[in-house]
């Protein structure tokens, strides 16, 4: 029987990592990620997890350690956020470039300056072009579940790309929620233990990893990463479907609510999606036609699936919890706008930037966002491409 427990998001990550029988863990402490590593440390110290924990002196080394370790065929894990992710930036591209199936939890936290420890997506969004798959969790159950799916996707021989599981700092990392756990044997059946890397380091057949590739070959390396991302678009829904089979919990690249006949659909990432859905439910009771999409997979961008679910709406409001300074709008907004550019019938698409540095998005803010979308639907006019919600101007 599956165990039902109360876990914080950080603890949920650690429990899932333990059940994945990870071999090498390297991490450097950063709030609000620390409980993940502390919990894993407890598991190792108590003999519940047979893994090597490398207590590195920086996040740069954390990612270097697990990337190199993955080349041996070991299953590896790290976790960070914010400044730590920023310090890893150089290696992010190397991990994906050597096609190491590293799984990393990102306890989403705002970037300095000013220094801040609370949730926004400026850290992981900055890494969206680094060749990593990005998954976003809405609640602690999803945090737990997405760790298993992350390994399933990353280690798929058609993919071999590193994968981030993003969970909002404090809102998910430190909030205790009900979690239904997988039985250990079910977990390892979903995720069999075998050498994870395509061509693990071998003494008998020595190979060179991390070559110098000049203009005559570099492009071919990079195009193969893009092909792998494209294959991941097929692999991810299958991995989710298989997970649904073993867990009984419904998973898809997004979680849609009341989108079929909605005039306004709000699309968001992370814990905000729960707030938006609950307010949408209230509005629906009053007969107001609004819906929500909680996007679980941001990279590779599930274009086909999103077009299907969103194309009936008159208005799409994108929720960006980051600022793309000087750009047309936030990253989710720009992706959605591009997605519909070639369509004959295009929804109006407006952006909302909110919640920076942990600023709360209240239900009344959420209601105002739906009303803003409904107003656009009525007038057919977007007053401002980017609307800032919850900020003193």
């Amino acid at each position, binding site marked *: 029987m599956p165990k039902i427990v109360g876990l914080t998001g950080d603890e949920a990550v650690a429990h899932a990592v333990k059940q994945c029988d990870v071999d*090498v863990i390297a991490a450097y402490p950063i709030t609000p990620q620390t409980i993940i590593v502390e919990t894993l440390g407890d598991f190792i110290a108590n003999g519940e997890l047979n893994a090597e924990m490398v207590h590195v002196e920086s996040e*740069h080394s954390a990612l270097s*350690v697990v990337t190199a370790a993955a*080349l*041996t065929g*070991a299953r590896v894990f790290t976790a960070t956020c914010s400044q730590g992710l920023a310090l890893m930036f150089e290696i992010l591209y190397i991990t994906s470039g050597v096609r190491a199936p590293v799984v990393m939890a990102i306890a989403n936290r705002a970037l300095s300056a000013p220094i801040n420890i609370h949730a926004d997506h400026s850290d992981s969004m900055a890494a969206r072009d680094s060749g990593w798959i990005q998954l976003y969790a809405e609640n602690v159950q999803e945090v737990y579940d997405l760790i298993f799916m992350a390994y399933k996707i990353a280690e798929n021989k058609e993919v071999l790309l590193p994968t981030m599981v993003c969970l909002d700092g404090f809102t998910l990392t430190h909030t205790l929620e009900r979690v239904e756990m997988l039985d250990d044997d079910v977990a390892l059946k979903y995720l069999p233990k075998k050498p994870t890397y395509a061509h693990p380091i*071998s003494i008998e057949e020595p190979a060179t990893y991390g070559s110098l590739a000049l203009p005559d070959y570099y492009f071919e390396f990079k195009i193969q990463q893009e092909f792998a991302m494209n294959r991941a678009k097929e692999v991810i829904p299958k991995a989710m479907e298989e997970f649904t089979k073993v867990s009984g919990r419904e998973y898809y690249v997004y979680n849609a609510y009341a989108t079929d006949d909605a005039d306004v659909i709000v699309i968001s990432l992370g814990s905000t999606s729960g707030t938006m859905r609950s307010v949408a439910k209230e509005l629906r009771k009053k007969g107001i036609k609004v819906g929500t999409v909680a996007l679980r997979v941001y990279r590779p961008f599930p274009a086909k699936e999103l077009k299907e679910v969103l194309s009936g709406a008159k208005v799409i409001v994108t929720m960006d919890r980051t600022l793309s300074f000087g750009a047309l709008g936030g990253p989710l907004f720009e992706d959605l706008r591009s997605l519909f550019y070639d369509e004959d019938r295009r929804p109006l698409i407006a952006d909302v930037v909110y919640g920076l540095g942990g600023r709360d998005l209240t239900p009344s803010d959420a209601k105002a966002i739906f009303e803003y979308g409904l107003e656009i639907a009525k007038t057919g006019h977007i007053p401002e491409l980017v609307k800032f919600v919850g900020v003193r101007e």
Partner: protein
Amino acid sequence: MSISLPKPEYLAPGHAACQGCGATLAIRQALMALRPDEAAIVVVATGCLEVVTTIYPRTSWRIPFVHLAFENAAAGASGIEAALRVLERKGLLKEKKKIHVIAIGGDGGTFDIGLQALSGALERGHKFVYICYDNEAYMNTGIQRSGATPYRAWTTTTPVGSKIPGKPQFKKNLAGIAAAHEIPYVATASPGYHVDLINKMRRALNAPGPALLHILAPCPTGWRYDPSLTVEIARLAVQTRFFPLYEIIYGRKYVVTMPVPKPRPITDYLKLQGRYAHMLRPEMKKDVERLEKVVNEFYEWLMKMSEVTKDLPLPSWYHV
């Protein structure tokens, strides 16, 4: 003593290094310390060695080679060492040979940008050997000064100007920094003394924890000398006491493996190298004297350290 050099050459000829490259010579020699029943994985920092040996689709490495970035060779080696340890414990490692993990970096990747990752790996006590091939500047990017560039040497960022004649600072003491971590074994070595170098590499491989070899690797391109003189210059660095050969065991015991009771004048070393051409000018006499004084003081301090620590026993793994 005599040793017979083993047949397998793990670094293949035909790589793209400059003629007379001291770095590739040093690494070739170091890998000769591996026994036939041992295997090795090298983790190499960005730099000359990585660039000249791994231009895709070719490789000069007959052993597994990993390159990630400039400053993280020690971290990469830590990851591989940790992975091998846990895979063996779980019965998932197929290889039966003893596998050594060897990290290699130049002076830029070791003295400067890689020092933090190196310190972390030494403190954590991974069983690996770190080799620094020190050619005393950023040679791969075109001879810029590093923390290993010696006093008054010319580089493209410490040019010989009318006000400032070459690098004003002295070189960082890498062996001292490594030894401060109290790791089992630290040694300096020279490709001009290959038997000494190979023996030291063997001790480094035998050591029960981290070991570091600091190898002076003359660079004809950056030091501005005739490529045929690499070994001669490597030897002169030792014979003038400019680069003494010694070991530090557990951060405590000092052993000078090549005492130089009667050093040759420092100018014998300087005059063969274009990077020191200005040092032969009469107005540079004081700078030459200062260099010679510092070099001799350090050598004498080393001799004192070896004298006062001579009663500390040598560990059993030291004997090769």
